[in-house]
C-alpha cells in the first residue's frame, strides 16, 4: 500500500474516530460562569490593549453605515492625495509585500536546489574544500558546522532577491532528452551575474477531485536537471488544493546521481500556502545514504519589499545525528549592493557571522567572518 493511500484512509477513519464532548464542556463552563450564555451580545474590545472603552457590537444597519462612512472618507482622501502622489512619484512609500512565486518558479527552485545539494553530498565532490584563513580562536560550533551551513546557503542563495527567479517552460525539441517539456530556470549570483539551469521533464495528472468549493489535483513527474554540464535524475509529485480563497501547494522532489542507485538521494518537500494575503514557503531537505536518513534541514523563507529596498529573511534548522542548529539569515539588497548577516543558535550556543562572495585564484568562494575574528572561505 502506498503512503498516500493509507494516509487518505487514516483521514477518513478520523471523521468517525474523534470524540466530540462539546455539550459536556459547555454545561460545565456555564455552571462555572466561564462563558456568556448563548445569544447574548458580547461587550468585548478587540484591540490588543485591554482597558480601552468596550465597543458594543451593534446590528447590521450600524455596520453598513460605518462602512459607508469609511468608503466615503477613503474617496475624499484619494481625491486630495492622488494628484500629489502622482506628481511626486519618486517619494511614494512602497507598501511591503511578500514576493509571490509561480508554480513553475517553485518547481524550478525545488529541482535546482535539490540537485545542487546532491552534487555537494557526492563522495567525489570537490566543493567541500575548506580553507581556514585565520586560525580559530575557539572551538565555536558554528565554525565546526560551517560547511553544512554553506551547502544549503549555496543551494538556495541564487534565487533570493528582487525579481531574481525567472522560469520559462517550453515544449521540448531536444531529442537527447525523452521528455515533454523544457524548463529554463534563471537565478543570480551575488555579483549580479545571471545563472541559467535547464530541466527536461514530463508531468502527468494522477488524481483529481472537485467537491463544492474545493479543488484538489495531484501530478507525477520525471525528468533530468543539468547543472554545470552534469545530469541529475529528478522525480516527484505535486499537489494543488484550493478551498475558497485559500490555496495550498505541496511539492516533493527526489534527485539521484544514478537511477540504478536508489539508496543515495536527496528528497525535498516543499509546502507553500496563501491565506489572507500572507504567503509562507517551507522547504524540508532530507539526505539519504545507503537508504538511511542521515541529515534533515527545514528552511522557511519570507521576502518583503520595504521603502525601496528588498529584504529576504530565511530561517534554516538542521538536524544531523545528534547535532542541531538554527540559523536566521538576513539578506539585504540596498543600492545594488548585497549584504548577508547570519544569527545562529547551535545546541544553545548563540552568535553571529557575515557572508560575502569573493574570488580567489579564479574560483568563487563564500567567505564567512565570525565575531572572534575567524574568517573561513569555502568553495561555492
Amino acid at each position, binding site marked *: 500500500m502506498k503512503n498516500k493511500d493509507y494516509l487518505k484512509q487514516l483521514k477518513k477513519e478520523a471523521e468517525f*474516530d474523534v*470524540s466530540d464532548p462539546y455539550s459536556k464542556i459547555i454545561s460545565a*463552563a456555564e455552571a462555572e460562569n*466561564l462563558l456568556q450564555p448563548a445569544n447574548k451580545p458580547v*461587550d468585548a474590545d478587540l484591540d490588543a490593549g485591554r482597558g480601552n472603552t468596550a465597543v458594543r457590537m451593534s446590528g447590521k444597519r450600524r455596520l453598513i453605515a460605518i462602512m459607508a462612512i469609511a468608503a466615503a472618507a477613503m474617496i475624499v482622501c484619494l481625491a486630495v492625495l492622488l494628484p500629489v502622489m502622482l506628481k511626486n512619484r519618486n517619494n511614494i512609500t512602497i507598501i511591503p509585500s511578500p514576493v509571490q512565486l509561480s508554480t513553475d518558479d517553485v518547481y524550478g527552485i525545488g529541482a535546482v536546489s535539490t540537485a545542487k545539494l546532491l552534487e555537494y553530498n557526492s563522495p567525489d565532490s570537490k566543493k567541500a574544500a575548506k580553507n581556514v584563513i585565520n586560525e580559530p580562536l575557539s572551538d565555536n560550533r558554528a565554525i565546526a558546522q560551517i560547511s553544512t551551513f554553506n551547502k544549503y546557503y549555496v543551494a538556495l542563495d541564487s534565487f533570493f532577491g528582487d525579481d531574481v527567479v525567472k522560469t520559462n517552460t517550453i515544449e521540448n525539441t531536444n531529442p537527447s532528452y525523452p521528455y515533454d517539456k523544457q524548463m529554463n530556470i534563471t537565478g543570480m549570483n551575488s555579483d549580479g551575474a545571471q545563472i541559467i539551469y535547464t530541466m527536461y521533464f514530463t508531468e502527468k495528472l494522477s488524481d483529481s477531485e472537485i467537491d463544492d468549493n474545493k479543488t484538489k489535483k495531484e501530478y507525477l513527474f520525471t525528468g533530468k536537471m543539468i547543472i554545470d554540464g552534469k545530469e541529475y535524475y529528478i522525480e516527484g509529485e505535486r499537489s494543488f488544493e484550493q478551498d475558497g480563497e485559500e490555496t495550498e501547494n505541496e511539492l516533493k522532489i527526489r534527485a539521484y546521481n544514478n537511477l540504478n542507485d536508489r539508496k543515495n538521494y536527496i528528497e525535498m518537500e516543499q509546502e507553500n500556502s496563501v491565506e489572507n494575503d500572507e504567503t509562507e514557503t517551507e522547504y524540508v531537505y532530507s539526505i539519504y545514504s545507503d537508504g538511511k536518513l542521515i541529515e*534533515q*534541514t*527545514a528552511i522557511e523563507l519570507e521576502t518583503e519589499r520595504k521603502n525601496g529596498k528588498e529584504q529576504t529573511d530565511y530561517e534554516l534548522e538542521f*538536524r544531523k545525528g545528534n547535532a542541531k542548529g538554527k540559523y536566521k539569515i538576513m539578506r539585504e539588497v540596498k543600492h545594488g549592493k548585497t549584504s548577508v548577516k547570519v544569527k545562529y543558535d547551535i545546541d544553545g550556543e548563540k552568535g553571529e557571522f557575515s557572508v560575502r562572495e569573493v574570488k580567489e585564484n579564479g574560483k568563487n568562494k563564500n567567505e564567512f567572518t565570525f565575531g572572534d575574528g575567524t574568517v573561513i572561505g569555502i568553495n561555492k
Partner: protein
Amino acid sequence: MSLDKFMTKLKYGDRAAFDKIYESTRKSVYYIALSIVGDKATAEDVMQNAYLSMLRNADKYRDGTNAYAWIARIVKNEALNVKKRKMRECPIDETENAALFGTTETDDFGLLTDLARKVLSEDEFTIIMLATVCGYKRREIGEMLEMPTPTVSWKYNNATAKMREALNG
C-alpha cells in the same frame, strides 16, 4: 480571523469565539490526548478538562503569541496528569482497566488508526495524526509540540516508514 484573535475574545467569555476555537482544535486536542493516555474514554475526559482549563485561564494567554502551542501545552499537561493519576490508582483487576494492561481492546478504532497506535511511538502517532488528519504543516506541529521542525520531519518519516512496513509485511 486568526485563532489568536478568537483567544482575545474568549477572555470576555465570548461563546462564538469558543465555538471557533473548539472547531479549529478539536481533532488536534483529541489526538494529542489519545497519544498520551491510550484510550478513547480517557482522551475524551482529557479533552473536557483541557478546554475547561483553557477557559479558566484564558486571561493568562498573551495576545499575539502562538495560540495552537498554548492550547497544546494545556492538553499535554492535562493528559500527563491524568496518566500519572491512573497509574497510581491502578486496580489489580485487569478487566477494570483493560487499556492500561493492554488486554481486552475496549475501543473501536478504525483499522489503520489502531495499527498506527500499536506500531508508532507516542510522538510519531501524534505527528502523523496532526499532519494527516488535522492538516498541520511541520513547522506548526513543531510549535505545538515544542520540537524543532527537522525533528518533526524526522519522526514523520520514521512513522510513515513503520506504517508502510507494517502494512506491506
